């Protein structure tokens, strides 16, 4: 299919239009409960953004990295300090600079990827997770010497207007996520993405074609960390509304890794599908626990069941569908289309027979 606008084909533009109508018009009109915004939609957008970051480094460039939450923490605390100390930057400016600060950490912790690969790289990148959290905990300056350990995030003000209601915050997250997703798609489909995938699929051949491994890997780590940093800032300011290093622990990194794998490695829409699944599945389990078993099952057991099912799904997907849910979704659409199409042909044939 030929791209019509930028790298987007007609199909993409239709999908984009549908998503935009859904998220800008339909959701705000029909969903009035705050719970949906504060507990589902906002974290979904933030985590999907972080998952895109993880996709870039792991799905596209093939570098097994684990430490997305560390970069998110860097972004979140950078945002806090920028708004506190450089108020002139404004919200959007601070958001971009926090992303850049996270990207600097990304470059630093991406360097081991030049020497080690696979599971060893994963262990090396874990350093970012622990180092960044440790650094924030160790030096009081990052928390503005707050003794309580939990800092309240400043209010979001863009161009003098406060964005404090759940709906307003949802729109902030939506705007940032949409723009960054489109940019990620441009990169993934353009020469940048081809270099990433070349390094992933066969690094020695990529190098023989003139793709610099150093530049490509470091670039992927930097961009990935930028996305995670921005996602972390939004996560803290729109969802948690507070800043504490504990919120960005290794568990969150694993969550983002699961979203990435279940959604489908090397896909941008997989990031959204994976994030939705991991966020909504516990909600669904809880609802089943409350409504079907009427609370007979202890909440702790439900959360354990959740872990068990995630683990199982990871194994199943790794074996049977490494391309994840994005691929399943694609297959489903394909089979629906061919079913509709073939039944259409049958109808035509039967009507033709009738007319005979």
């Amino acid at each position, binding site marked *: 299919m030929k791209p019509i606008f930028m790298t987007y084909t007609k199909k993409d533009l239709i999908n984009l239009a549908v998503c935009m109508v859904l998220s800008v018009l339909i959701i705000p009109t029909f969903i009035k409960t705050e719970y949906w915004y504060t507990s589902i939609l906002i974290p979904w957008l933030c985590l999907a953004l972080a998952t895109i970051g993880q996709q870039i480094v792991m799905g596209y460039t093939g570098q097994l990295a684990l430490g997305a939450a560390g970069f998110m923490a860097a972004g979140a605390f950078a945002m806090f300090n920028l708004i506190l100390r450089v108020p002139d930057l404004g919200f959007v400016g601070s958001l971009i600079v926090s992303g850049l600060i996270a990207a600097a950490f990304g470059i630093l912790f991406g360097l081991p990827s030049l020497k080690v690969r696979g599971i060893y790289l994963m262990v090396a990148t874990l350093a970012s997770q622990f180092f960044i959290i440790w650094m924030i905990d160790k030096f009081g300056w990052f928390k503005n010497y707050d003794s309580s350990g939990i800092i309240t995030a400043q209010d979001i003000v863009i161009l003098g207007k406060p964005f404090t209601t759940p709906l307003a915050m949802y729109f902030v997250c939506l705007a940032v996520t949409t723009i960054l997703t489109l940019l*990620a798609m441009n990169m993934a489909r353009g020469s940048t993405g*081809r*270099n990433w995938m070349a390094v992933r*699929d066969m690094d020695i051949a990529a*190098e023989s*074609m003139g793709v610099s491994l150093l530049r490509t890997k470091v670039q992927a780590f930097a961009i990935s960390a930028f996305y995670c940093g921005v996602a972390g800032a939004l996560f803290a300011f729109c969802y948690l509304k507070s800043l504490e290093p504990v919120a960005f622990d290794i568990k969150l990194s694993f969550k983002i890794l699961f979203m990435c794998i279940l959604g489908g490695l090397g896909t941008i829409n997989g990031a959204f599908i994976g994030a939705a699944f991991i966020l909504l599945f516990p909600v669904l389990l809880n609802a089943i626990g409350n409504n079907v078993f009427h609370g007979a099952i202890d909440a702790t057991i439900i959360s354990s069941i959740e872990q068990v099912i995630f683990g199982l799904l990871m194994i199943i997907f790794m074996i049977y569908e490494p391309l994840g849910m994005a691929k399943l979704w694609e297959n489903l659409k394909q089979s629906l289309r061919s079913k509709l199409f073939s039944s259409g042909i049958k109808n035509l044939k039967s009507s033709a027979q009738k007319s005979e």
Partner: protein
Amino acid sequence: MAYERKFKIGKPILEVNNISLAFGGVKAITDTSFNVLEHEVRAIIGPNGAGKSSMLNCINGIYKPQQGTVSFRGQVVPNITPNIMAQMGLSRTFQNLALFKRMSVLDNILVGRKLHTKTNFLEVALQLPKVKKEEKLNRERSEEIISFLEIEDIKDTPVGKLPYGLQKKVELGRALATDSSIILLDEPMAGMNVEEKRDMCRFILKVNDELGTTMVLIEHDMGVVMDISDRVVVLDYGKVIGDGTPDEIMANQKVIDAYLGVEH
């Protein structure tokens, strides 16, 4: 030769000077020297384990030889890496296929256009007009190569799903897309049937003829080698045992011995 060549064979473009390569105690190549002239088709032959692929890997910078140098257009190349050689205008294919398996044929060939892509990731993300212009040019060139290799019908297929012979063609396409002045082909016809081999020979000669690209190939099929190459170098146990035109090589007693074995 009966026909007039558009690109006359010229000065040495690539010179291998006294290269020695060892893996631990195993000597793969010992003090080997030969040259490749501009616009010629040069074959490297030899029995299994003679060090042919190791030789290409030394030229291309994947292996670092313990001794010796590689000169490109008369200049010794210091610190050879695959990337530096690519930038100097040397491209290659691999013996065991080194394609980007999950990418389509077109995308594989587009990666070959890397050195003709000057825009950075930020410009790509924003899809600035110059990115589009450049992408269009690269795509046109890639499509040209695809139609030249007669693989239009598979251009959107992921390479990993293609049969071996076609993958070899795609790899040649990727090397061609670089517009390099010299291409190293590591067994471009291994595992192909007669018809596929004939096609491949045709492509190699056509590229050499029309674009003047210097071709260095490793090949086992003697008939093919003697047919298409201008000069042949024969390696055995990591040493040069013969170097000359196909006719000279066929008359060379050492080469005959190496291939057929000698009575002791």
